[in-house]
């Protein structure tokens, strides 16, 4: 393995999060406060908030769910700070995009130490959330009666038609992704669902948008996550075990599914992953764990192909075989010849939860604890050096990819 060939962009010296789930009694500001406090307290050698030079926050629905604008002002009030605060809205990739912006700021030399936060309060919106989530789709897709599960179901249906060879195993593989992610979350104390689901149970769950069933979908969640990023040079001021961000990439594409060349792959995943590999001079073979945006199971399937891990149209076979071979293990790796890749060791969006704006930041939190060996019950036991975090917005209109290393 040849990591760290290029200079790291930034170092993560602190990370914190809240539990994800239906947190009825917490305001969004409170969630961000809790995640931020946990994050500050995780800094081994201590940090004071006055050392934060800027903040980057990601949230998708704050304005519509909580009817609040000028988020920097609300957050300045919560934090008691007067530093520059930048809000990023990129649907489910709001968190990843906030990290991308923070990395840009550190790369540019503008700031040394910044706070990154992602948060979402979805349950406040009650039964309007399905409509609100469609803000991240093309208005004509909303007009066609689509929901987000429906859009992903359209991708899944075409994927199975084009590549499934008419086999049951392809549909089974879609359920195995969810089953594996639930299995990974069993010991994750923050996870929304800590329950096993067999592929059979997933295939029998209620229909949401055929062929997508309830248990193919990530849930509606509340939660927040936060990180403290600093320059690689200053990292050791805060901790002896910083985790470095080696690549930070973002790509965008049409918000509309119908205008894309292909609906069975995500162009932004391809672009951002390739750029991240190029930035680090790594390949997929060098990645040991990946935090993948499994908002719907087919998205994880497409990631495995778009990142180059499996050939186009074959991921379902790899998933099927890997699941059958490794379902009894603590973590079920995806096997590809000599390579083993553990995807979503904490349960991913499916089981850990998906408070939209928090997810991208939560992914780096998970990678941070895993790489530092502090993931508790869900710790991947083989010595870890590298992790990749993949955060998608909408049906793939935006993707951020971060590669982390020790």
């Amino acid at each position, binding site marked *: 393995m040849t990591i760290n060939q290029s200079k790291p962009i930034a170092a993560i010296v602190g990370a914190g999060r809240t539990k994800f789930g239906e947190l009825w009694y917490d305001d969004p500001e409170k969630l961000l406060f809790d995640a931020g406090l946990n994050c500050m307290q995780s800094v081994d050698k201590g940090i004071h908030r006055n050392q934060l030079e800027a903040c980057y926050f990601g949230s998708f629905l704050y304005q519509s769910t909580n009817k609040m604008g000028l988020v920097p002002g609300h957050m300045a009030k919560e934090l008691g700070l007067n530093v520059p605060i930048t809000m990023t809205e990129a649907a489910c990739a709001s968190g990843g995009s906030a990290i991308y912006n923070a990395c840009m700021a550190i790369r540019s030399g503008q700031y040394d130490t910044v706070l990154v936060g992602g948060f979402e309060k979805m349950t406040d919106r009650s039964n309007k959330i399905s409509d609100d989530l469609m803000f991240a789709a093309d208005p004509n897709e909303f*007009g066609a009666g689509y929901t987000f*599960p429906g859009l992903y179901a359209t991708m899944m*249906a075409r994927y199975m038609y084009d590549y499934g060879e008419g086999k049951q195993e392809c549909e089974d593989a879609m359920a195995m992704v969810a089953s594996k992610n639930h299995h990974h979350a069993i010991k994750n104390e923050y996870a929304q669902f800590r329950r096993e689901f067999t592929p059979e149970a997933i295939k029998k769950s209620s229909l949401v948008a*055929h062929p997508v069933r309830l248990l193919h979908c990530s849930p509606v969640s509340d939660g927040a996550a936060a990180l403290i990023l600093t320059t690689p040079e200053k990292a050791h001021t805060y901790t002896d075990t910083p985790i470095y961000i080696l690549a930070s990439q973002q790509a965008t594409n049409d918000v509309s599914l119908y205008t894309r060349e292909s609906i069975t792959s995500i162009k932004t995943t391809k672009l951002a992953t390739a750029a991240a590999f190029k930035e680090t001079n790594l390949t997929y073979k060098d990645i040991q764990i990946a935090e993948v945006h499994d908002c719907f199971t087919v998205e994880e399937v497409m990631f495995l192909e778009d990142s180059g891990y499996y050939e186009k149209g074959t991921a379902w076979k790899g998933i099927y075989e890997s699941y059958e071979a490794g379902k009894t293990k603590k973590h079920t790796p995806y096997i590809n010849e000599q390579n083993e890749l553990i995807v979503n060791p904490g349960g991913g969006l499916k089981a850990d939860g998906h408070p939209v704006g928090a997810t991208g930041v939560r992914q780096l939190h998970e990678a941070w604890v895993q790489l530092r060996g502090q993931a508790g019950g869900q710790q991947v036991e083989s010595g870890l050096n590298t992790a990749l975090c993949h955060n998608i917005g909408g049906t793939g209109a935006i993707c951020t990819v971060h590669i982390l290393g020790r």
Partner: protein
Amino acid sequence: MQFAQSTFLGGKKMSEPIARRQSLTDYRITASKCGVCGSVYFPPKSFCNNEGRASKMIKHDYLYEKGSFYSGSVISAPTNKFKYLDSYLSCLIEFNDGFRVPGRVTDHTPSETADISKYIDRPLVPRFRRLYADGEDGLVYYSSLNYSFADEYYPYQEYTEIQPSKEIERPGIVGYGAYIPKYRIKNEGDRAAGVKERTLPYADEDTTTFSVEAGKRALIHAALNSSYIKKVHVGTESPTYAVKPIMATVTQALELGEKYEDGFFSGGVDTQFACKAATDMYIDACALVNYPQFGGEYAMIIGSDNSQAAPGDALDYTVGAGATAYIFGRRDVIATLDHYVSYTSDTPDFYRREHEKYPRHGGRFTGEPAYFKHVKTSMKACLEKSGLTPKDIQYVICHSPNAQFPVRAATEVGFDKTQIEPGLVGQKIGNLYSGSCPTSLAAILDIAFPGDKILMTSYGSGAGSDSYIFTVTPKNEEKRNRLVTMKEQVENPFREYVDYAFYRKMKESA
């Protein structure tokens, strides 16, 4: 305060300007095509991604084109706006040039576990339907990004324009289009006075969508450039809005009149006179196309209704749904309008007050002093004026509130079964209110020979009757291959029968 409450609690979700802008792209699926590389963009873009500033973008509509199912999903847990449809099929449609748009498959109730691969590649045709309504008091949104399977109830028809002939004739009908929905309900027992089954709208249909569909078919049948039509009247008693004309939506969707900026040089109104709201305008249309100052040669008259009846009322067993559109002009006429009489009196047999959902009627008072008096008087006067006798007429049509009244009225004036029965489509489709006589006339024109004379008498409560005598010309047969006939629609093997609960739900949605 009342205004504020209706604004915030009434559920106005989209702004009127957004609705206007969407109508410009969604009514006809208007895209822009790059003249250099052929890439298509929807909604239209001012430049092509490949050609940049060198691109030459050309507007292109897909309203009259055919696409196919690319992929989709059965939506079982819809957004709040679409809950009125329960579960349905949303999909991506691919047109022949590879251009894709999203859409919803309408007139189709998929099984929750339908195998999506079985839908892939099936042909689809755009349909003008409702998306949703902003509550009871907000806007109703329409789009043609709704589709039905072309190998099913609603066939694909090409729209080819033919230059009108140079010869000017007596004014009359130059094209027509009837549209009746796919769904039917059967009447059990004998409460329906001979109406055996009736049409009903799908939940996303209403008088506006019927009007557009019928108008579209009339244009296809006439093979006429839509810009030639300078006037459109929509006669209905179930208007979508209390104030806002259906004819404007029809004009925008079918591009009637010469286009100028984003509007059209044409006019028209929605007319109201119970069931004769449309037929009353036929003479006006013929007069207009004869009037030099009109500045045009064609007028379209649509009779359209989602006929309303209170649940359980006698009318609840006879009401149907649908529309028929006629284009009147003086070139390539298929049936000349030869004689006309109208008879009116203030007879309160059937009425609906503003804000009331269902009409009320005078029971047996609707018969002798109302329907029969007006229909028979008008019919007799028209025969007398024309110098014709029932023997000179091949087909007779009377407004069909049920299947017994028209038979009795026509018989009492001297017509026999063979003249009456071909026009009795009401017994299979119900009472289409303003669409009743126009649809019966369509059924006759579908089968009539050159030289045949048709006597049509409408009836509108309130009350009045219009009688017309048309003579069929040889052009009728020339244009017949561009029709979807009433027989094809009435007997369509894909028509779907529903129960009373489904019927009531559909009636209330539309």
